[in-house]
């Protein structure tokens, strides 16, 4: 029987209370949201916090809404809510496409956006989605609020910019028009972590790509993206040549590890195929959207 090592359980009723509990217990306290990454790690003693602060009751952090020219997603939003959100699908189909292949429906009922990002697993999908979309996270402490670009959020595997005594409260994504987006993932079996996955958004201005974002996970891509490939695409015509060139840059610049999910050359090949597919589908959607003003 696997059970976590002993800890003290506390339940927070508000963000302020959660911050106060984190302050009381110090750096050995951890927040727990859905718990579907943290509790398995605690069972294996890969994590051994002295106190868990349960934030499942923080309804104030459970929302998906338009906030000015951004989409704002509360940290306690469950994966299932992201998958089913008409608002997110209207702007970026990358969300539903990624969520559909994150774990399984039961895990998606519990797992949260904030929890997934803060766990910072190097194979996590939403990290790639928000990196592609150039989102930013909002972090609160008793000292105030600060914002961190998604591409500076991950400090390393399982490490983020969220410090002791801080809570990630929101993720923000700019709203774009004439945009298409897509997510492509290959896993060994339904619900598993990626062998490799890639997401993209493309904004078209006439016959040129005017803005683009790429997200890549599970293969050691720096900041879950590839800035060099993005730079090569901006200003280019959205044709096969540009797509293939960008995909090749992604494949050569990532750093896949050899493990039971496959050898290095296979993973690089997957990256090139998945980036190309995500870009092609994004371009196709953006073409439709640019004639209608919104993503189809």
């Amino acid at each position, binding site marked *: *029987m*696997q*059970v*976590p*090592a*002993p*800890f*003290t*359980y506390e*339940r927070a009723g508000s963000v302020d209370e959660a911050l106060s509990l984190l302050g009381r217990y110090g750096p050995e306290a951890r927040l*727990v949201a859905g*718990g*579907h990454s943290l*509790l*398995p790690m605690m*069972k294996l003693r890969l994590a051994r916090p002295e106190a*868990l602060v*349960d934030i*499942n009751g923080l309804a104030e952090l459970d929302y998906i809404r338009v906030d000015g020219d951004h989409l704002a997603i509360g940290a306690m939003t469950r994966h299932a809510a992201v998958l089913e959100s008409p608002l997110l699908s209207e702007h970026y189909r990358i969300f539903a496409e990624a969520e559909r292949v994150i*774990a*399984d*429906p*039961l*895990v998606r*009922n*519990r797992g949260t956006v904030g929890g997934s990002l803060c766990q910072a697993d190097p194979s996590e999908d939403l990290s790639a989605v928000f990196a592609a979309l150039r989102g930013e996270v909002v972090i609160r402490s008793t000292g105030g609020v600060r914002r961190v670009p998604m591409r500076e959020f991950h400090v390393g595997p399982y490490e983020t910019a969220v410090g002791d005594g801080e809570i990630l409260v929101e993720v923000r994504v700019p709203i774009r028009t004439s945009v298409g987006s897509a997510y492509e993932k290959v896993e060994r079996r*339904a*619900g598993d972590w990626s062998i490799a996955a890639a997401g993209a958004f493309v904004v078209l201005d006439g016959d040129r790509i005017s803005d683009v974002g790429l997200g890549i996970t599970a293969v050691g891509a720096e900041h879950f993206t590839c800035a060099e490939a993005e730079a090569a695409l901006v200003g280019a015509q959205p044709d096969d040549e540009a797509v293939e060139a960008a995909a090749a840059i992604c494949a050569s610049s990532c750093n896949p590890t050899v493990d039971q999910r496959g050898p290095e050359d296979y993973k690089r090949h997957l990256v090139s195929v998945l980036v190309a597919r995500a870009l092609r589908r994004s371009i196709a959607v953006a073409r439709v959207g640019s004639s209608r003003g919104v993503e189809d």
Partner: protein
Amino acid sequence: MRVTIEVNGRETSADIEDRLLLVHYLRNTLGMTGTHWGCDTSNCGACTVWLDGLPVKSCTTLAAMADGRSVRSVEGLEGDTLDPVQQGFIEEHGLQCGFCTPGMMMVARALLDRDPDPDEATIREAISGNLCRCTGYENIVRAIRWAARKQAETGRSDREAEEAVL
């Protein structure tokens, strides 16, 4: 710590270790062994119960997290008669060893409450967090379809009976 959890409509309460998992609260503290304890890694879904109306994996949920909330387990499916989902698993041979069955049925009940007429793809997606080591998925899908048909028929006959009275 002291927890109070509504289980199948009945209030339960116990002094527990903070680290106790919900599956062990049900099985060991309450002695309700209908909920199965399988992989312990939130992969297999044998431990699936409802928490505040949503199916979750109870091996990855602390009993403390359910404090003040409501849980429904497989023991709570049956009313005066078997739930159509339970009857469907009998009619269509939806189980072999039976280990995955409680989790499968809790997911099936949640699915049919939300979507009374799911197609096969929807059923397969709904049970994709539940593993059957006998690989009896074909019959599990049939069992859930049987339950959907049964409910539709029963609903119709109930409505007809009501209309006849009126």
